[in-house]
């Protein structure tokens, strides 16, 4: 193990920021968000959970897929794959798990999505174990833990006023090299973070089909606004839309970009087909789909459960739709 003081970690981040883009939790108008850092003094070290997950870095809310230019009847296409390496500091265990969930879809399920895959390849994750758990957190119920290093390249755990650093992958090894404090000689071990475990059993996927026609979904959906914030704050929701946007004219050139942006199955147009028919016209059908996707369809197709217990959807929902209430219901019967 390695032991670093906060000053040493800060000096190390300064060093890393000179070579690559450093992304870290920053306080943006009162919200903790992962953003590129221009001055490491701005990095927020002590926080419970960021407002948005690190999903944004790998699967941005809006990203360009290609550029198109029309020249007479000809069309020029330019592939626009993401460039450059980056390091994310302060990744929470729930978000690292969210990335593993997205990996199952975008990388492990053929064909590979080159945009997501390239960002994953070119990004190193420095994890920061949670010292306390939030009121809505339930990571321990879905297989995670506040100090779980799964999916990280380096894991930092606060201990004795500094940080115990565990180097996990080759990528982690690479960014710790040349920095003398990573001597591997420390005797200090991280203490496990104390996490209260809720009385909540996540029902296995076999349980779900029998709950499909229950009245519960309509009751739950009565207050749902179909606002989609749950999907946007979720570290593992991945639905997207693709569309073209014209680019502001330059020298009369006819240029446009193809973009993909986040979408959610809670939106009315999501499942509408040609001619206007919509098999998920009702709110309860859409709300039900979101939970069935997370705990039944997604595991069936891609392996992992599509929930990391981060609790963001619980905090973000304007009408208190609570995923743990849903799990409680489905698991109870």
């Amino acid at each position: 193990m390695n032991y670093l003081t906060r000053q040493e970690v800060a000096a190390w981040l300064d060093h890393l920021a000179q070579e690559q883009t450093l992304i870290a939790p920053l306080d943006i108008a009162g919200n903790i968000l992962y953003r590129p850092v221009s001055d490491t003094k701005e990095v927020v070290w002590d926080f419970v959970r960021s407002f948005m997950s690190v999903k944004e870095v790998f699967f941005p809310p809006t990203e360009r897929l290609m550029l198109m230019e029309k020249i007479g009847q000809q069309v020029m296409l330019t592939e626009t794959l993401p460039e450059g390496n980056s390091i994310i500091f302060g990744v929470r265990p729930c978000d690292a798990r969210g990335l593993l969930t997205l990996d199952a879809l975008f990388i492990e399920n053929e064909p590979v999505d080159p945009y997501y895959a390239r960002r994953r390849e070119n990004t190193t994750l420095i994890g920061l174990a949670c010292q306390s758990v939030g009121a809505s957190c339930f990571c321990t119920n879905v297989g995670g833990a506040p100090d779980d290093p799964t999916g990280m390249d380096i894991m930092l755990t606060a201990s004795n006023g500094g940080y115990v650093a565990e180097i996990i992958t080759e990528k982690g090894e690479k960014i710790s090299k040349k920095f003398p404090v990573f001597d591997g000689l420390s005797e200090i071990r991280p203490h496990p973070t104390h996490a209260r475990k809720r009385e909540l059993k996540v029902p296995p996927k076999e349980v779900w089909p029998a709950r499909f026609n229950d009245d519960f979904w309509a009751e739950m959906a009565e207050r749902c606004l179909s606002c989609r914030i749950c999907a946007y704050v979720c570290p593992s929701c991945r639905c997207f839309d693709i569309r073209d946007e014209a680019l502001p004219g330059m020298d009369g050139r006819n240029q446009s970009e193809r973009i993909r942006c986040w979408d959610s199955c809670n939106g009315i147009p999501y499942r509408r087909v040609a001619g206007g028919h919509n098999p998920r016209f009702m709110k309860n059908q859409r709300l039900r789909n979101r939970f069935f996707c997370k705990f039944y369809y997604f595991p069936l197709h891609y392996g992992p459960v599509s929930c990391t217990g981060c609790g963001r959807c619980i905090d973000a929902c304007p009408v208190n739709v609570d995923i743990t209430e849903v799990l409680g219901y489905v698991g109870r019967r």
Partner: protein
Amino acid sequence: MTDKQQTNPMLPYLGKLVEVKDIATEIKLFRVEMLNGGGEAFHDYKPGQFAFVSAFGVGEAPFGIANIPHFGEQNGNRNGDATLDFAINRLGSVTTDLHELGVGDMVGVRGPMGNGFPMDKFKGKNLIVIGGGIGGAPLRPVIQTVIANRADYGHFQILWAARNPSLLVFTDEYDNWRATPDTKLHLTVDQADDTWNYGVGLITQLLERVAPSPENAVTITCGPPIMIHFVNRVLVEKLGFMPEQNYVTLEARMHCGIGKCGRCNLGTKLICVDGPVFTMAEVGALLESFL
């Protein structure tokens, strides 16, 4: 596929429009000559498979491919690359922009995608093709396959319908269909006009009247979801077909076509990779209704 396409499934091939013609009210048939390696990718796609067509600058949308692969000298295409037909109804922004395009303009094509109809499994069977409106588009390659390999299939019936006569597709091909041995074409419209000399009524009524025998037969239906539902009901409840005999092609407003974007889930199935062709037995066993 070319190497580039293999690494980036979101990049379309380029295709040049070599023919654009009106085939019904607000419906045009686009013939696309594939460029930059796309001909290779579309060398042996199956009837019932689909592709995304891009109107560059506006967007892309999925369409059933409306023809069987045809190449080279057969249609005078100098590259020997495939040309693809798409029958497109002007409805939204992408289709409106496509309707503005003419011969020589470029479109993007991504595909082929989906499972397609098991035409080999249909060999030796009597086929009943049931098409409603623009739903006839993905059925045309089925009809073309039967015509091109007539001896492989049994008695062939085509039930073709639309809301009114001006919305019927491929009308200029009816004579060819009728002239095919052991083939019958039955037409109906919901609302007739002065020019109409055939039956009037819903396709379910036509189906009851034609009353095909379920023996050694399969049906292949495409149309609006409500039509698929009631056609299957007539087939099963009145004509004695098993749901396993009834093939349908479903639709969703998908965005990726490769099982990622999540848009086309129908319960546990993804229409883009598990479909779009299902039997009604499969559809009936799904957790979620397509209706």
